[in-house]
């Protein structure tokens, strides 16, 4: 027996009628896959648009908060400048009054809203105490 004789024992042919509607089945499958692909794409688009909207909101919040911080920093800078000005320019009495005569922190006096101008007239009394 030869090897070439044996292959007739094998049957790899398709079952009868397999190719009768084969082309229609393929196009149905293609159509089905196209639809599910479209669904996937629309889902992705929905997700993306949600993500983009969320990003815009986050960006808006960030810009708003950074503007707010900038304003705060500016105010602090002004306050600092004013403190520095006082330190550089105040006389001994004023300095004494600010540092020893009162227990409140110096910064309170640097803010214009809290300056009690009356204290400038009481420095004699304070000196007497010491």
């Amino acid at each position: 027996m030869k090897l070439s004789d044996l292959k007739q024992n094998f049957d790899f042919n398709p079952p009868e009628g397999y190719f009768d509607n084969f082309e229609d089945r393929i196009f149905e499958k293609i159509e089905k896959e196209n639809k599910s692909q479209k669904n996937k794409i629309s889902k992705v688009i929905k997700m993306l648009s949600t993500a983009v909207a969320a990003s815009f909101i986050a960006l808006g919040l960030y810009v708003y908060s950074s503007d707010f911080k900038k304003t705060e920093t500016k105010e602090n800078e002004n306050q600092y400048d004013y403190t520095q000005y006082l330190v550089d320019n105040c006389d001994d009495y004023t300095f004494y009054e600010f540092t020893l005569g009162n227990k409140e922190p110096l910064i309170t006096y640097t803010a214009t809203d809290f300056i009690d101008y009356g204290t400038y007239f009481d420095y004699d009394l304070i000196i007497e105490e010491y």
Partner: protein
Amino acid sequence: MIDAEKYSDIELVEAFLNNQNREKIFRIIMKRYGTRIYTHIRTFLVTHEEADDIVQNTFVKAWRALPKFRLESSLFTWLYKISTNETLSFLKSKQNKKTISIDDDENFVQIPSIENDDHHTSDEITQKLTKAIEQLPEKQRLVFQMKYFEEMKYEDMSEILNTSVGALKASYHFAVKKIENYLELD
């Protein structure tokens, strides 16, 4: 109705690329190569159901890829290439599902046994041949099955498997020798 026999593969592909009745043209291509593609896939798979899935996937992929086809190879070898890749991917995923071992060579594909399949005769010599084929290394088995069962030309196999004709001839020769020794044939 288009007379399928009238047109060569090149004419069909050119007409397809020029957007002329794409669906009709593709139906002709399926009619022309469906059975051969089925047989090619079936030699590697155990059941008709598996082969049916792979044949369908092959033609769906071909439909999607045909607009990019550049006629650098023949339509026939191009379709065979798709179907071979689909079959090997299927076998690989089936094998991965069965056993996952770190010792496995990732390129190795276990082509399943056909001995228990209803579509094959089950006489002793046929079973012995089946066992002999199973013992071949993967590449030799691919070459043997394509040459022995499908009687494919070496030149076509060379394009499909990206291997030189010389290497394919050597592979087939060694495969035949091994099988003949196994079966104790002349």
